């Protein structure tokens, strides 16, 4: 058994030291394939549905699913809107070809435009949310009767709340939700992701020219390192600032995490009885029968 090299010495937060984000990609790869295989089987499902956008996160999830379940058991959907870039379509097809699964293309323009035509003045965020939820409703429709919907939100997006509730954030199983964006990129390289997909700037592709990093106001590498120290290592924001991290960046990220927390938990239920769903009625999801 190979034993990975061990860090010697104390880990100090340092804005220029990205090494704490390193992962053993081969080990993580193994864990995620086993996760998909076992957890899908436990609820009696043998097929998964995944929306492929042409971006790296959904491509990695689809590749893991094809390995875990077999390509025939992956229902992969590319669901463009009229403003989606031609590049996204080409990349989605490239991912399907690379990892050997079939790709179905469903244009969501007619159904989204039918709604928008009657909705009055709708800004681009609302329109983007509508597209994300329209796609998810199709994924759930296509999961019936024997499939589970896979989530593709990474840890950075989840912690920053950078996603649409019941849109892209919705899923039955999410294999990549505990990997920061930069870690997921490392994993994608190991999986054999085409270089053009690894290198392109991340985008939700909800309006023309959108990029995640421009919208967020910082890079994923910056955010991931701050989040790693704040969340994984439980360091306080003040300690990061003292160690040389940008004060506005640290406080901004910390506040985003706090404000978006409601997006990461189940709906709150008003407890009035002796036993309440989600509070003290707590059977495991993987409850098995004899």
């Amino acid at each position, binding site marked *: *058994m190979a034993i990975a090299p061990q860090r010697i010495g104390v880990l100090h937060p340092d804005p220029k030291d990205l090494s704490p984000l390193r992962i053993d990609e081969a080990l993580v790869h193994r864990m995620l394939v*086993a996760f998909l295989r076992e957890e899908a089987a436990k609820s009696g499902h043998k097929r998964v549905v995944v929306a492929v956008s042409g971006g790296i996160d959904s491509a990695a999830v689809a590749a893991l699913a094809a390995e875990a379940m077999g390509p025939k058991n992956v229902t992969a959907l590319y669901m463009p809107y009229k403003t989606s870039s031609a590049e996204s379509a080409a990349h989605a097809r490239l991912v399907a070809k690379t990892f050997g699964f079939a790709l179905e293309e469903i244009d969501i323009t007619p159904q989204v435009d039918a709604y928008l035509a009657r909705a009055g003045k709708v800004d681009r965020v609302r329109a983007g949310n509508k597209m994300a939820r329209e796609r998810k409703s199709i994924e759930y429709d296509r999961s019936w009767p024997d499939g589970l919907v896979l989530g593709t939100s990474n840890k950075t997006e989840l912690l920053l709340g950078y996603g649409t509730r019941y849109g892209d954030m919705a899923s039955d199983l999410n294999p990549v939700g505990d990997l920061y964006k930069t870690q997921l990129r490392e994993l994608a390289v190991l999986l054999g992701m085409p270089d053009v997909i690894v290198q392109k700037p991340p985008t939700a592709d909800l309006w023309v020219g959108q990029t995640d990093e421009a919208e967020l106001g910082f890079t994923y590498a910056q955010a991931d390192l701050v989040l790693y120290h704040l969340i994984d290592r439980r360091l306080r924001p003040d300690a990061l600032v003292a160690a040389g991290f940008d004060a506005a960046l640290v406080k901004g990220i910390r506040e985003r995490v706090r404000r978006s927390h409601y997006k990461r938990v189940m709906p709150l239920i008003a407890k009035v009885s002796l036993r309440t769903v989600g509070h003290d009625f707590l059977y495991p999801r993987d409850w098995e029968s004899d």
Partner: protein
Amino acid sequence: MVKIAIAQCAPALGAMKRNIAMHQEWIGRARKEGARLVVFPELSLTGYYLKDLAGEVACAADDEALRPIADASRDIDVCAGFVERGPDARLYIAQGYWSRGKLVHVHRKVYLPTYGIFDDGRYFGPGDRFDVFPTAVGPAGIAICEDLWHTSVPYLYGATGATVVLSPASSPGRGVAEGGDLGTAESCRLMDRFYAQYLTLYIVFVNRVGHEDGIAFWGGSEIVAPNGDVVARAKEFEEELLFAEIDPDLVARERDRNPLIRDERPDLVVAQLMRARGMAVKD
């Protein structure tokens, strides 16, 4: 030399009948291979993250539900985990030791982790003792998972006559950052080797595998000898019935060479702790 088997299995959560059948099958395989003892992980008969299922799968140590395990122990000793319902209805994370068709020892988990992903203290009461008892592999004590992380536990066993510590666990694999192996795996291996070598006894670490609610148990069960050698180690994340030899003579040789346990002064430890707690000590 005494052959021992480690049953690195993946119990079903809350499905005790299925788990009993699985135990019978693994016990049969261990017996066929000539093992004198087979050790299962923590809560091997029930699964670990039981939450509100704990009370439903609980039974008294002498309950008929455990009769199949007693029956399976006629020709091979069996050490397996279950939820014990005490006479006062408290629930315990228990590890039984069955020999010649009878339950001969029960250890109740003392240290109940209730932090992070653990919620033992919400569902279970703590045990209150660490007893050494005779086993097929020599005088032994049982330290269930978190029990082993408290240095006083293996110390107490070493200081009161154990030559083997059996440590059944349900250890979730986590900590993949910083480029290394699983953080939990590194910690466990460090503990096993340190305790074995400095208390000059065998550490038998028996972890489970499989998933519960998205959490993976990492396996990696191992036996470490009193000289610090890793006698055998199971794979990570996969079921495995692992066999190894325990050599009582190695304990003797190691303790001749390195008589730490002989020279240990538990009386000083007791006196020091009593003084620190404001109790009267005869000087």
